[in-house]
């Protein structure tokens, strides 16, 4: 259980997962935030008002998947690093996932990084498509990783360092 291990359960994840129909339309934000804590920067970050933390700041965020375009601003703003962007339309076989990342060294674009799941277990080596550096004050980087489509809802981190060159 999440409260004992820190690992959200499959049921937890289902409650925040968009439909396959929505996934087919392009990138979307997934807020893996399951506990009522006083926090709302994600809502304030969203220019499209796709994220609601209502009626008060102690509610968990709700993403309106019809309004969200997966821009990823909320991902860097979330203090809990709990928001991920998943784009299942990236290619025929791969999904592009965007992860918040705060470790050095950063991978370089084109390198392979070891993908980890929510338990920190290795899921394989995946190409880093892009590294978006953090802003001067916020500092949280965004890693764009291409993973097989069936791992789009599994890979949630990369191991810092030990990156490999080439596909």
């Amino acid at each position: 259980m999440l409260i004992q291990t820190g690992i959200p359960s499959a049921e937890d994840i289902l409650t925040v997962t968009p439909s396959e129909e929505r996934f087919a339309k392009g990138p979307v934000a997934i807020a893996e935030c399951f506990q009522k804590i006083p926090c709302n920067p994600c809502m304030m970050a969203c220019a499209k008002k796709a994220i609601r933390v209502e009626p008060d700041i102690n509610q968990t965020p709700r993403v309106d998947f019809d309004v969200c375009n997966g821009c990823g601003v909320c991902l860097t703003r979330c203090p809990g690093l709990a928001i991920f962007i998943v784009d299942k339309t990236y290619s025929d076989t791969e999904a592009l996932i965007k992860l918040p990342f705060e470790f050095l060294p950063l991978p370089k674009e084109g390198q392979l990084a070891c993908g980890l799941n929510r338990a920190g277990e290795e899921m394989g080596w995946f190409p880093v498509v892009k590294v978006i550096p953090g802003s001067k004050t916020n500092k949280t980087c965004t890693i764009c990783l291409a993973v097989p489509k069936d791992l789009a809802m599994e890979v949630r981190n990369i191991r810092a360092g030990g990156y490999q060159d080439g596909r």
Partner: protein
Amino acid sequence: MIRDVEVLVIGGGPAGLCAAAAAASLGAHVLICERDYVPGGQLVKQTHKFFGSEKQYAGDRGIAIGRRLIEEAHQNPNIEVLTEATVIGIYEDGIVTVFHRNQHIKIRPKRTIITTGASEKFLAFPGNDLPGIYGAGAVQTLMNVAGVKPAEKVLMVGAGNIGLIVSYQLLQAGVEVVGIVEAAPRIGGYLVHASKIRRAGVPILTGHTVKEAYGKDKLEGVIVCKLDEKFQQISGTEQDIPCDTLCLAVGLTPLTELCWQAGCEMAFIRELSGHVPLVDENLETTVPGIYAAGDVSGIEEASSAMVEGRLAGYAAAGSLGYEPEKAHERREAAAAELSELRSGPTGEKILAGLEKTAAKLAARKGEAKGC
């Protein structure tokens, strides 16, 4: 020579800096006494992003919030910051004594806001005096303030927010964190922090405790074991975890020496993590003119400490006659912010504690009327 001061703020952490800014914004002259070399309190090492709402700078990193508050204090002509200034006494005649760079200073404040914060608790187990066993705060200071890598291989005790956050920061510093041991059956800190370090591969062992630490001249490893539902160690469940550092994040306790000395009425409130001064809706203690805000009156998040500081600052300045209407208005706004922060499940404990202090305060007033 005795120096007269309008508002004395004891402690330049998040609560103290906000108290000073609030009081100064209404026109009061404020002196902050900070015992460290720099103001900022714990903010100077909080490299993570803060929770809360915009009003408490949520989404910004603690260090950035600290920098901003310190800058504002330095730029405000109504605020003077005295560093390396340890307040050592509050006397019956209202004189406050300060040890400042080898000098003994006497201050006569019209109002005093005590924002002395908290200190870390320790844990009793065989071997707990071995070199290599630290409080989590010390490890965080070494890493994030002094830039020293404090360890190679750490076992963390405590899955509250401090244990989880310091574990994450250790990982960021390139230190191996072999696990987090937590006696309670549940993770006490924010689950997003827990998930963040779990997906970096750090196991969180709830329902476990430290049985003993061992090592010849310094820590070499820790024996942990499982606990039953009555928090008793279960024999046969021992696990040997080699590590060079054991980090204790087992809670904080309010630093209330000055409140005791000033004669504030105190009460032990479990939900507020120890003995705390009884304060009213203005955060004024039972000693007129002395306020308490932040962790000193109950362990909570830094975001609430900042709002409490502001509340006390407005109340203190208002009581001195500085823009009483504006002071009242802003005090109300701060109180509303606090209610909002505490309105969810994570605020239940603190609200229960505050209810107890309010009841004790009411009973005290009733007694005073009776006689």
